[in-house]
């Protein structure tokens, strides 16, 4: 919008004597009276310019600011956490089995699969894109490794020759697409998958996991290339791939077939527990690491004179989380077996897996240049382009991350069930994973979200399903309630966006 224009009709007089009521050039010096003072005393006023920025706030003020942000629409994960508390309270009151150690541990392993897929989806959602194929893509990865496990490495025999060769071609194509987009790192796993399939090493649980990750990356390269380089909307690409991958799973497993997870390590991923000692080691490692990172950053900023939360508040926060961790570890180390003959204790393996992914995912998003670029592209792709960011590459990379992480999710899901069937990754898997991210507070509009959102949201979804099933509600009720909760979360997102746009949060 051009607010001011010179008069469209130029004066006909060419004379310089024609003087309108103009501002002579000389007056500009008088205009900003403060400027001269400002530049004279620049050094000393530098701090005063950002008075609020440098003054250390008290606890009361910091809490006040927090509530101001909340009322301004920056809710973060708070609605989901609140919902989780409500759900826990309701189910504890209604069902005597809900708040038992056995059920809580069960809840963790039930929710872990979709939570992990949701964590990968957060990256895609941050760009305002969607990956509808993450679920069935995870199914493809599961089918490949389960088949590899069953036929002891002889995938050529397991798949039949033309399916096998087509898969090899697909791997090579994926690697090529990654190179074309200059995302060279992503070209390595597809090539590795190609080599692993060709040399046909005998089945080994760790090899299967590696194969799953590599296939996941290859699928991500394909999706990302179509969206970022070719420029097809992600909704259409992933909708098409959602269907296609379902067919591929069927192709690998065969009509009506089921591939059992006959391997102790793979079976234990979702069903095993750390030993009590290992559980405590995990607690010490995670707790000390968390405290070191948070306090280290806090005192680092304090030393440089930058604005920080009050030390008391930060200390309390760290203390509360560490104590909660200790309580949880202690509780999970108690014997929760309903059967006298068997002892079930320790933190489930899925907890360190999810924690590890959380730390890695959050580190990448918050602390690396790449993560900053992901947020920038999600916020304003054109601005990112002008700032010299390779938007195509970033857009492709999030799909690669999503599919790779989905492969980990598939390992957990298949391990939990104990087999891979043609429905693997189909059905509600993807919808629950997207739901987990959105319920946790990740915006579908892009630019806003954190990896931990998927954990909070995944917990909400798992709790609804687990609690309603304990109450003996049919699947219909579970689906309806989950759907309504997702709707509620999306509304909260839309409304808080509107509110923060209107309020202009400080």
């Amino acid at each position: 919008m051009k607010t001011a224009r010179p008069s469209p009709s130029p004066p006909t007089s060419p004379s310089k004597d024609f003087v309108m009521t103009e501002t002579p050039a000389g007056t500009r010096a008088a205009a900003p009276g403060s400027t001269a003072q400002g530049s004279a005393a620049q050094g000393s006023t530098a701090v005063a310019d950002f008075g609020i920025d440098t003054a250390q706030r008290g606890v009361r003020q910091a809490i006040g600011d927090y509530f101001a942000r909340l009322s301004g629409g920056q809710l973060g994960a708070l609605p989901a956490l609140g919902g989780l508390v409500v759900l826990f309270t309701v189910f504890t009151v209604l069902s005597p089995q809900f708040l038992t150690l056995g059920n809580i541990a069960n809840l963790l392993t039930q929710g872990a699969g979709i939570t992990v897929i949701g964590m990968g989806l957060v990256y895609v959602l941050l760009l305002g894109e969607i990956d509808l194929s993450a679920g069935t893509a995870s199914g493809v990865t599961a089918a490949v490794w389960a088949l590899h496990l069953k036929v002891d490495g002889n995938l050529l025999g397991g798949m039949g020759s033309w399916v096998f060769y087509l898969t090899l071609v697909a791997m090579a194509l994926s690697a090529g697409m990654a190179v074309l987009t200059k995302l060279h790192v992503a070209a390595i796993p597809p090539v590795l998958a190609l080599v692993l399939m060709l040399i046909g090493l005998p089945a080994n649980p760790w090899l299967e996991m590696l194969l799953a990750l590599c296939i996941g990356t290859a699928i991500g390269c394909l999706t990302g290339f179509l969206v970022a380089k070719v420029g097809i909307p992600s909704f259409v690409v992933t909708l098409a791939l959602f269907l296609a991958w379902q067919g591929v799973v069927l192709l690998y497993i065969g009509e009506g077939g089921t591939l059992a997870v006959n391997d102790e390590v793979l079976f234990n991923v979702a069903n095993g527990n750390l030993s009590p000692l290992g559980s405590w080691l995990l607690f010490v490692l995670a707790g000390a690491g968390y405290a070191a990172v948070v306090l280290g950053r806090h005192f680092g900023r304090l030393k440089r004179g930058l604005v920080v939360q009050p030390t008391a508040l930060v200390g309390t926060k760290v203390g509360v989380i560490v104590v909660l961790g200790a309580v949880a570890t202690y509780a999970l180390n108690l014997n929760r077996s309903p059967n006298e003959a068997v002892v079930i204790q320790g933190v489930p393996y899925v907890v360190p897996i999810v924690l590890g992914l959380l730390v890695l995912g959050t580190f990448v998003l918050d602390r690396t240049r790449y993560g900053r670029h992901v947020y920038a592209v999600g916020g304003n792709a054109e601005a990112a382009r002008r700032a010299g960011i390779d938007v195509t590459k970033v857009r492709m990379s999030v799909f690669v991350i999503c599919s790779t992480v989905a492969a980990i999710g598939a390992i957990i899901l298949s391990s939990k069930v104990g087999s891979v069937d043609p429905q693997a990754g189909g059905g509600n898997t993807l919808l629950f994973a997207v739901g987990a991210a959105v319920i946790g507070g990740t915006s579908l509009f892009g630019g806003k979200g954190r990896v931990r959102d998927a954990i909070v949201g995944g917990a909400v979804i798992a709790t609804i399903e687990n609690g309603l099933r304990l109450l003996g509600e049919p699947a219909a009720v579970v689906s309806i309630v989950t759907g309504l909760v997702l709707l509620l979360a999306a509304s909260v997102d839309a409304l808080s966006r509107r509110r923060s746009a209107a309020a202009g949060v400080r």
Partner: protein
Amino acid sequence: MSQPILELRGVNKSFGPVHVLHDVDFTVRPGEVTALVGDNGAGKSTLVKCIAGIHPTDSGELLFDGEPVTVGSPRDAAALGIEVVYQDLALCDNLDIVDNMFLGRERLRGLTLDDAGMEEAARKVLADLSVRTVKSVRTSVASLSGGQRQTVAIAKAVLWDSRVVLLDEPTAALGVAQTRQVLDLVRRLADNGLGVVLISHNMNDVFEVADTVAALYLGRMAAEVPTADTSRAQVVELITAGRSGDLGIPAPETATV
């Protein structure tokens, strides 16, 4: 007068059959604000984009600090210290001021972002520019007013030890008070020794901050004159007719078209 920091000599640019810039000469001096005026389609934006390396020029010379240089891409321009603040602000709403100012050129400490260092640097630049309207450098850009956003965009351009800053209509969408802030800032940039090019349609703005006015008329540089030696009416004439008295492009009968 000081030595020009940026000088264009006889620059031509065509888009297919459309000859947009005809033998344009243009000079930017450090410590001065040069206003670039002209009607819609006169070639102002094209000229800026040629300087910024977005469009390659067809012919003509670009001298930086007296040395002939070639600017083939925005990266070349940035390396020389030429920064452009575009009309539609290139800011990410979901990031805060510091993140936006360092976008694409984040400082690292090892593998991780040096957030504290960037925050200090951003605060220093804003303080040097006497920006007082922003409460915290960690404010999200979404919550800033139009003037504050423009301020951030300009400060971003200053952050990189830039020598020449090109501003494409920085006050076009702003209210009175915000225009005031931005014009003050433009003036301070020049006072800090930068060469500033201000594209504007607004004669008030031009006469308030500019030292020199360069008027483009249908792709030709009609005149580049000190603001003090000219009047608003003359500049308007230069914009609309290409000449004013003895200034500007010679009358059509003598001009070679």
